[in-house]
């Protein structure tokens, strides 16, 4: 059955994420970071940052929640039981620090079919309270087409 591509270009409402100091520390510990910029507010301030710095991959936390409505959108039509996270890309701008407020918009970048697999690519655009783009993400999910 050909994959339905009608949702390409669809954009979802902005989600807001307030970056908290302890959340950054929790995330940094969970991925094994030891750089004190992520963990120690005094060290971060001494290095010139307003607060602890979020590791680049913290983007999954502030942008990830924005993806959920797209993943569950019936118009996109993903079958979760057969979904795999196939690939991921992030491009980063200025670093995110605790205290930042991040606004993320998700859109459906592409839906395509190759070799019996359906590819769903979502794009996230995340901006801080100054309007600077801190991260754009391309999230590729693959669904086996067994139908």
């Amino acid at each position, binding site marked *: 059955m050909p994959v339905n591509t009608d949702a390409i270009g669809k954009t979802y409402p902005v989600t807001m994420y307030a970056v908290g100091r302890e*959340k950054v520390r*929790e*995330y940094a*510990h*969970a*991925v*094994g*970071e*030891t*750089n*004190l*910029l*992520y*963990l*120690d507010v005094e*060290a971060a301030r*001494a*290095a*010139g940052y307003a607060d602890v*710095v*979020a*590791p*680049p*991959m913290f983007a*999954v*936390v502030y942008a*990830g*929640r924005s993806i959920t409505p797209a993943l569950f959108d019936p118009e996109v039509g993903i079958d979760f*039981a057969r979904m*795999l*996270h*196939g*690939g*991921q*890309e*992030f*491009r*980063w701008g200025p*670093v995110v620090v605790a205290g930042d407020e991040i606004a993320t918009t998700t859109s459906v970048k592409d839906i395509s079919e190759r070799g019996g697999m359906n590819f769903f690519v979502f794009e996230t655009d995340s901006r801080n309270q100054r309007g600077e783009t801190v991260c754009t993400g*391309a999230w590729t999910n693959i669904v086996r087409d067994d139908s």
Partner: protein
Amino acid sequence: MSVERGGPVRLEAGDPVHLEVTPDRFVTVRYAGASGDFNPIHIDEEFARSVGLPGRILHGLWTMAQVARAHTDAAGGPERLKRLSVQFRGMGRMEEPIVVSGTVREVADGTAVVDSQAEQSGHRIIRNAVAEISVD
């Protein structure tokens, strides 16, 4: 532990990027809480087996975070990493060493392009990773 905030960074073609890490058996629980990804294939042994997996598996984005860490360590801090793209293959397991290895492909116009992968027990669980690091 140390503070690393990218002072001058000089990378040359052929320079290595390397990181070794062995995920402990509860890392997926901590990462689920930290990231908000509570997919039971990562935290529930019984559920994971019921869907045909050998057991709980690592979050792909946790493994990608190890690839990112290899690069920010090489770059001397988080500000220098400007781009990272990866492909996920197979599944990562707990309590088996993961080796992230990469090489600087080229340096041009203030950007070092790095190719890397993450390998565990002979399987390349992250392939075709490409990173861009801003250099001086």
